[in-house]
């Protein structure tokens, strides 16, 4: 990497002006920068404008670029918020033993609460914060997307922090790293790979719930925000197939572009954070990343901005750290106060919640429990069906490296298309064939969750050591025996990982799968998700709260009773140690 050494040891003065050929190379970057700038400006202009919650969603294809841009900005803003939350929450949970005991179960519970259940609270708070500006509703929508993507990122960051090798941590301590240096030189790099994968999943989740987050009924108010999600929702409402297809195509295009322009380069770049002893033979690559790395403009910009900034921060915090050490640790009283306040607020919340739930009538409880049973059966059935096809197919693909090299990217694109966007088309087909939302919900859940299982099974099958496969050959094991003795046990841990993610996702997805606005009417089927969606729509907060609690309890219980045990079994008995 000659470029790096070039900037490191001070470039010669004429190096400031990029040579002709490199200016050409830099052109795409310049344009990309300008586009981002324009997007932000136009969104800001719209954001501070007066409130217009009932914006007419235009179904003309010419409106699509603007809507796509707005949706992307919303998701990006929610993602930035998630990242900030992740750092703060994960940091405290990992380093404060007392807080950890409270924060981790809390995170577990929050994760099991479906997005829509946050809607009324978030919206009311935000709209009352900015009563006259569009900003309030916008912030509400962003917060809603945030609640759908933040939890797994936080978990990932927390567990990465907890698993930093002891000696690495000790090196940072013995050499008196300031918290800033520790963060950018140890914690963030160590956590980055897990964080990036989870970010991808989170953003995909953002697309999945986009329709629910951009257009909703809150009591007597019908709120809709200009964006791809509301476009699709409106098109579905009107039964405009052409608009649905146009919206869907735009969404897929945006997702594929984001994958190529953002995630691939980021993943390729993050390879340097892999904690490995030897260099891997094959590493992910990205032409975009190569373009960025070769860019003179960028390296110049960073040598003027980020490099000196980081240096200044490092110096500043190093001085602070020294003084802190001299002054000794400051008192724990503040922390006790903060802790006590949080605990008090939590207790108050629990009391209020219980009083609210007490207002739910018996017939309503009955509906909730019947719905819970129906959704439970639906989710388990979907998982079973998903496993039935993905396990054999995944193993078949995973055992053949060449096939998986072709199949993986295709499956990834297929998986990145949010099932909710496809939903109107599927429903249209189903209704034509005489089916209803009962089957539709199953299809939607299946589309939304099967990929997690498939990817994990493929990963598991491709990780089976060659010598074990050769043993099977030498002993002439029959096909059935091979599957029973090697393939199935070997992919079991991966399968469980896939199931855990898929199960959580399916419960969450039930709120959009069981209740749908279509052709100007509302179709729903029996289920807990439908109960929640309906309660949100009608502004029945008691019912919403009760149903949400039931769902959270069920998800947490299933996790503890089933998945966690299977996980323990998988990580002891079925772990392939190398």
């Amino acid at each position: 990497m000659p470029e790096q050494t070039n900037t490191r040891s001070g470039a010669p003065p004429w190096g400031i002006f990029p040579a002709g050929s490199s200016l050409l190379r830099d052109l795409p970057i310049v344009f990309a920068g300008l586009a981002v700038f324009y997007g932000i400006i136009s969104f800001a202009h719209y954001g501070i404008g007066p409130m217009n919650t009932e914006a007419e969603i235009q179904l003309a294809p010419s409106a699509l670029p603007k809507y796509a841009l707005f949706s992307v900005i919303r998701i990006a803003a929610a993602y930035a918020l998630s990242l900030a939350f992740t750092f703060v929450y994960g940091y405290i949970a990992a380093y404060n033993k007392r807080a950890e005991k409270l924060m981790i179960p809390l995170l577990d519970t929050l994760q099991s609460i479906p997005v829509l259940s946050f809607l009324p609270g978030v919206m009311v708070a935000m709209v009352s914060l900015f009563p006259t500006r569009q900003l309030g509703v916008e912030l509400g929508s962003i917060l809603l997307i945030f609640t759908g993507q933040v939890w797994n990122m936080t978990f990932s960051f927390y567990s990465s922090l907890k698993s930093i090798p002891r000696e690495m941590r000790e090196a940072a301590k013995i050499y008196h790293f300031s918290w800033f240096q520790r963060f950018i030189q140890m914690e963030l790099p160590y956590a980055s790979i897990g964080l990036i994968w989870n970010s991808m999943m989170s953003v995909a989740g953002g697309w999945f719930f986009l329709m629910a987050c951009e257009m909703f009924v809150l009591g007597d108010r019908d709120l809709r925000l200009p964006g791809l999600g509301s476009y699709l929702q409106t098109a579905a409402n009107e039964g405009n197939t052409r608009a649905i297809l146009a919206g869907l195509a735009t969404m897929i295009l945006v997702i594929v572009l984001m994958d190529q322009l953002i995630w691939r380069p980021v993943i390729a770049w993050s390879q340097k954070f892999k904690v490995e002893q030897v260099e891997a033979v094959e590493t992910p690559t990205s032409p975009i990343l190569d373009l960025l790395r070769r860019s003179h403009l960028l390296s110049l910009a960073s040598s003027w901005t980020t490099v000196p900034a980081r240096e200044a921060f490092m110096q500043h915090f190093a001085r602070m750290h020294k003084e802190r050490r001299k002054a000794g640790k400051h008192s724990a009283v503040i922390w006790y106060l903060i802790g006590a306040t949080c605990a008090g607020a939590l207790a108050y919340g629990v009391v209020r919640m219980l009083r609210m739930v007490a207002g739910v009538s018996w017939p309503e409880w009955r509906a909730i429990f019947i719905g819970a049973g129906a959704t439970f059966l639906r989710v388990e059935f979907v998982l079973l069906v998903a496993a039935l096809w993905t396990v054999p197919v995944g193993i078949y693909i995973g055992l053949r490296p060449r096939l998986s090299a072709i199949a993986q990217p295709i499956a990834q694109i297929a998986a990145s298309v949010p099932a909710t966007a496809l939903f109107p088309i599927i429903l249209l087909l189903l209704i034509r064939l005489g089916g209803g939302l009962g089957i539709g919900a199953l299809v939607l859940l299946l589309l939304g969750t099967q990929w997690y299982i498939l990817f994990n099974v493929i990963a598991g099958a491709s990780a089976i050591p060659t010598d074990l496969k050769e043993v099977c050959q030498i002993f002439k094991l029959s096909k059935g025996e091979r599957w029973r003795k090697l393939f199935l046990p070997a992919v079991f841990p991966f399968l469980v990982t896939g199931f855990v993610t898929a199960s959580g996702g399916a419960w969450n997805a039930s709120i959009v799968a069981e209740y749908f606005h279509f052709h100007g009417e509302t179709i729903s089927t029996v289920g807990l998700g439908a109960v929640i969606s309906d309660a949100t729509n009608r502004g029945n907060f008691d019912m919403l709260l009760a149903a949400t609690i039931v769902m959270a309890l069920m998800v947490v219980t299933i996790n503890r009773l089933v998945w966690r045990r299977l996980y323990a079994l998988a990580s002891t008995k079925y772990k392939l140690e190398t």
Partner: protein
Amino acid sequence: MAMSDHNKVLELISQENWEAAAHAMERLDPSEVADLLQKLPFEQQQNIFGRFQVDFAARVVGHFPYYHQYVLLHSRGPEAMRAIVDKIDADDRMRFFDELPEEAWQHLMDELSGAALPHPQRPQVQPVSKPKLPGPSAVVEPIIEARQVQKFYEQPDGNRIEVIAPTNLTLEPETIIALLGPSGSGKSTLLRMLSGLSSPSSGQVLWHGKPLAETHPNVAIVFQSFALFPWLTVCENVEAPLAALGMAKQEREQRATQALDSVGLKGFENAYPKELSGGMKQRVGFARALAVEPEVLFMDEPFSALDVLTAENLRSELMELWMAKKIPTKSIFLVTHNIEEAVLLADRVIVLGRNPARIRANFRVNIPQPRERSAAEFTVYVDYIYKVMTQPQADIAFPSVPGKPPKTKFQMLPHARPGGIAGLLELLNDRGGREDLYHLADELRMEVDDLLPTVDAAVLLGFATLEAGDMIITPEGQAFGNATISAQKPLFREAALTHVTLLQQMKSALDRKSDHALPLEFFRDVLDEHFSQEEVEQQIETALNWGRYAEIFTYDSEDERLILHDNGLSEKAQTERG
């Protein structure tokens, strides 16, 4: 011819012409000379032996019993004596040292090492507030002083697990101290308390006379796992601690380059650690430590992760830097389990015993640098440490340690496998049933640390005894070592149930239960009161290993339950023995 020589010698002796007699004897066979000498009065023996050439004296002296050798050697001056001991055949020498009583051995060791100090090994166990070291070091103010430091872990039930017994220790300038001990003896814990990484449960660590917590000690650590940041280049890794000190970029780079140059890594500044071999990674570790110019350099098993040749290389380079005073470090504290490494590098060696850790020996190594492994005094030290480490109950060389509380301790199972025990006994059988441990380890190409658990296990099971560094097989051990694989099991079972408290307890508890089954948790609770968390797991693992091998019980890993093995085997064993 031989006869005439013989007579001539006798004649010369009768004339008391010692010079000529010695000269004449040198033409005879050494064993014959030994016979001749033995028949003479002691004064005459000394007169003649004192006049032998060094080589010949060395060949003769091996034919005498150890006490005789001892006095004969003392008929020469210290210089000549050292030369003679050097020339004695290595096996004979080892036997000689083994057979010598401690007192005499110690005395001889002093003389051989040309010790200025009358008693090089002075135990530091007396609980005096100011531990005095022998010789000049007592005058020098120590850099680090540990006073009665102790480490224990509080169990949830209030029970305390003592990891390190109250210990006094000093680190003087201009010394390399090696801390030796079997694995799990708390060496690393002690290092972490001395360096300020962790604080003692009770007692105090002083840094230049002030409590460690109130100062900022300038120390560095070289870790076993290198603890480099894989995402930083070699140069950035070395710079990181300097940045933490608030040093400016330019000075940092200069210092880092200098440090890298001194460990021979010039030209690798921009490489990433994963591109380097293990030895080079540890060089980076050294460069990082040396760049901060620490007053005390701590090293935690720095060579253990490297192959033998690389380790040897790095060790000698480090010694070169140290001896030539090319590094500003005043003192080095090395933790190791490798006895030879300790004797090779250290000015002072401290041997730790375990459960809980306490200092069992603390002595100076009075061999000038550079040291040769083949030198006699080198083996003397190595052998001495072997003895201390192989006889955990005995207070070798310090028979007068007063007032050790007679604690009844829970028997601790050495972490050995039945197969390993059988293998060792078989080897011992082949070597005539008695062999020096040093030779055994050497023959097996093992570190003493790896061999010791197996030796301990064999002793615990009554298959062997230890005597002055020799392992001696018992009749039971002989039977076990010679038995076929299937016949070994009942023998092992009998030995285990006779000698191993934990297995006895397990069996009787299982016997008493009507269904002959118990959860493993039950025994874990019993062990919890005696061992640390980590050790409990190891004890359980070993007990399971032995108990299943001996067919005392079976273990259901899914339910984590122990089930009594049906009694068929023990009866079979009875008949086989009868």
